[in-house]
């Protein structure tokens, strides 16, 4: 590939570096691992940039590559285990009545919230990061993670509820993360 193609790559792909690094650092918990993953992601993307469809979503494409890189590095050579919405929903209890004893005007401390996310499972953190922080749709997140949309929905649902529980019970920070 040529120099003009490199300029195009910088303009369309490399602009997403911050977002990819942000997510990688939260999923790997080590800056050097995260940087390695991001670098490998962009090198793979560069290698196959010719075959990338210019009309499609470059950002989602890059995130999909990155999750494949992460999975491969962690030795997960098969698809992420698919769980049906029914399976994950079995234990979800829905509140009845007004159980919100918190002060709705109380500021939610961002730092505390970030520490709380570190206590979630990697699967929950992944959907939270993709949908809430990076604002992908459920469909895009499902394609990036290679799971059904129902799985994205249920994991996100549980992730938000877990975070809320951690924040309300004051257990956002812990020593086991």
């Amino acid at each position, binding site marked *: 590939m040529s120099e003009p193609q490199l300029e195009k790559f910088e303009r369309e792909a490399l602009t997403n*570096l911050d*977002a990819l*690094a942000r997510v990688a650092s939260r999923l790997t918990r080590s800056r050097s691992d995260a940087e390695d993953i991001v670098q490998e992601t962009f090198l793979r993307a560069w290698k196959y940039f010719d*075959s990338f469809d210019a009309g499609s979503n470059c950002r989602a494409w890059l995130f999909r590559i990155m999750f494949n890189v992460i999975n491969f590095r962690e030795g997960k050579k*098969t698809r992420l285990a698919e769980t049906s919405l029914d399976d994950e929903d079995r234990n979800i209890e829905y509140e009845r009545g007004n159980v*919100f004893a918190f002060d709705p005007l109380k500021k939610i401390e961002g730092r505390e919230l*970030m520490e709380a996310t570190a206590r979630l499972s990697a699967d929950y953190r992944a959907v939270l990061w993709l949908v809430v922080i990076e604002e992908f749709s459920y469909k895009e997140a499902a394609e990036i993670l290679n799971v059904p949309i129902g799985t994205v929905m249920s994991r996100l649902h549980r992730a938000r509820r877990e975070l809320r529980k951690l924040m309300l019970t004051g257990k956002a920070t812990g020593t086991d993360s």
Partner: protein
Amino acid sequence: MNCEEVKKVIQLYLDNELSARDSLEVQPHLEACSSCAALLAYFTRQDDALRAAARAETEEHSQLRAGILAAIQEAIENPTPTTSSTTGSTTSSAPSPTTSPTTSPTANKALRRPVWWQRPALRRIAALLVIAIAAGFFLLRGSSPFNEKVYADAVADHDHHCTLEILNKFEKAGYVFSRREEIDERVVAYSTLQHAPDLTAFGYDEPRAVICKLNGMKTLHIVYQSQSQEPLSIFIRRRDGEMIKKELLELTRAEHKLVSMARNGTELVVVAALDEAQALGITKAIAAQFGEANSANAIR
């Protein structure tokens, strides 16, 4: 819908993943039920706080960027043959090489005859087709339905949220914010600004903020009130992707004047029942607050 039904879909509602019909059923319940409204408000605040905290923590990666570019430059100068086993991925949709030559006897036999790209006449026809398709793409791009949905959604959201009655009702439900620090917190999360734009010079004040979606993309909607004019809305979001064109665009939709532009990493859409010159003046004033020294001159 009852509380149990609403609570099952409340996150879909928050993420704007509910159908329009279901959303219409959820909304009246939220206005009437403080418990469900509080649940939505909490998840909204949690999401916003998480987003703001994550963006505030974003580090600078110039060294990483330089390393990536150096590695790519190395690959350009010393290309290696592409093989089919380099991705390490399996059935995922990571890019995989599709043009590497096969080694089967059948493939080798096929390669002995000139294939279509080796025939000059067919190459010329293919080149003309590519040019025609590209020209068509660029010609149609200006009238892409993608941007039109953004403006249609902006007008619809402006009309929906700009009455005091609706704003007060939604503020009680917890998903409209009127306190300055709450609004500024969201401005920081959704743009490269530090504060909500100051429009007092134009007779607009009392901003109130709500998160909405334009063409499926979460956007911060700030409604400004005026004693003598119709309310005005601005929609802002960080520019990662392309919701609207970068260049300033003025248009009229459903008797509203709209002006949109992107500056310094933030996309802005202004919706007002004003004349064109006023809407443009307000947009320029907001652009100036984005921090560019010559933004007013740069626009027109």
